[in-house]
């Protein structure tokens, strides 16, 4: 259990570090480009594409992080009944549905990545396209996993656990 706990914490840290790297990249690269234009340098030809890809990766990493506490945008008609028992069960049910939907998407996106691996298409800097796409199945798998855990344990269990980073709000 202790090993799993440490592994989980390490993965959370990795996720955070990855996020910070992406943020630095999508701020840094455009600014670098502006300066190169200012000084008449050629700049990096691949920077625009890299930043756009960075936005995709940042967004999906953000979506993974949002699912740590199931903070995705939803219609909150029932939130006034938050402390009732049946609300908890409805929530577990919707978490389970979310997990299943994300698992289906992840599964089919793995198929897409494998197909593109086979075609050998290239993105910028000769980077294989399938590597650029990798975040999509990965993110949906992680989101599915987190919602599945929330469906099994109930949200309260995760909200208060410090090893899950606690609640930020």
């Amino acid at each position: 259990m202790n090993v799993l706990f440490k592994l989980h914490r390490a993965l959370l840290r990795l996720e955070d570090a990855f996020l910070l790297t992406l943020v630095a990249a999508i701020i840094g690269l455009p600014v670098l480009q502006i300066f190169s234009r200012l000084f008449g340098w050629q700049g990096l030809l691949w920077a625009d594409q890299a930043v756009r890809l960075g936005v995709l990766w940042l967004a999906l990493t953000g979506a993974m992080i949002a699912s740590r506490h199931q903070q995705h945008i939803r219609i909150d008609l029932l939130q006034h009944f938050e402390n009732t028992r049946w609300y908890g069960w409805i929530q577990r049910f919707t978490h389970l549905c979310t997990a299943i939907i994300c698992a289906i998407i992840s599964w089919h996106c793995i198929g897409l990545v494998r197909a593109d691996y086979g075609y050998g298409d290239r993105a910028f800097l000769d980077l294989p396209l399938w590597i650029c796409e990798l975040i999509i199945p990965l993110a949906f798998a992680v989101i599915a996993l987190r919602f599945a855990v929330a469906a099994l344990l109930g949200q309260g269990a995760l909200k208060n656990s410090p090893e899950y980073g606690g609640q930020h709000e």
Partner: protein
Amino acid sequence: MIALITLGLVILALAGLPLFAVIALTTLIGYHFSDIDLSVIGIELYRIADTPLLVALPLFIIAGYVLAESKASHRLVNLSQALLGWLPHGLAIIALVSCAFFTAFTGASGATIVALGALLYPALQSVGYTQRNSLGLVTSGGSLGLLLVPSLPLIIYGVLVQQMNMGPSFTLNQLFLAGILPTLLMIVLLAAWVMWSNRHTKLATQPFSAKAVRQALWAARWEIPLPFVVLGGIYGGWFAISDMAAVTALYVLIVEVALYREVSLKHLPGILEQAATMIGSIILIFGVSLALSNLIIDNEIPEKLLAWIQLYVDSALGFLLLLNVALLVLGAILDIFSALVIVVPLILPVALSFNIHPVHLGIIFLANLQIGYLTPPVGMNLFISSYRFNQPIVSVVRSVIPYALVLLVGLAFITYIPWFSMAFIGP
């Protein structure tokens, strides 16, 4: 069959299934019935990386979260009070104008009420406005600014419509220009209402002091350039919008972390994580809705909707009235981003066939959804206000009613007189 599936989706959405999952599920079901391979959703999601204009969105969200975390709101209120505090009703006008600016810069995330409202609510009462009046003013003011750059819903609308590639073309800059007059109109109407409803109230004013102005200017010296850089950069066309957003994010980070030192390096990762949560939620919804909107268009649903609407409505005026009512209802249930990504692909083709310019349509959409922030059951500002100021939700709703009605009058002007949106754009 379709009715049953739709009903199921609506029930799931109302039960609290995250909206990205609702939209994704709708898309997957649609693919299944149209014999499209489900992996196409991955191709559609990858289009996020092919949308240059989308780059601005995360950058402005980051800048907004960092700004909201600093004491920028204090300096903004101090400065405007030093400049306008001597005017009768000066503080109410300050409240409205600074709310509009702050909302535009921090996105539509409720930060305005939390950061600015906390300063303005007690200040308004201390100069003599009633508690109810102050509450209503701050709560409704918190939704102003949606139509001003760099507000996130405005950017989302622009990107969404440009993706669809329909109707008269326009640039994002034109859309940003279009929001200026409608915002001014709403501020003027709200200010007029405050003055009229408080015409018998005795209000305290503070004498004008050049020293206070100098002090406030000096305190805000690093932030004052920000609106000029952003607005000048975008309206003046010096930079591309995404470059502008990167410069803004970097500038805000340097100013708040290194110069004012109000956001510590230790807290920065946590703030960025919150920003990323917001970025992820919004762009994920945007991504799955790209897939859904293609499906909607392929299945000619807008045409069917148009045919159905034409059974009842045959003029642009009638259509706009119907649109207003529908958006007010939707705005009361859905949050602004989901309402945009779900409804725009359906309505844009219909609106075009009634000869409504996409820029004007966007302004109508956002002005409408802005009022949705103030209408129960899901009006976000009501809850934030109730929570922040420790007031029962019923009294917040009661305090907001006159302001919401004034905004409705503004909405009517904006909807039925296209000039407000199109004045700077030409025919």
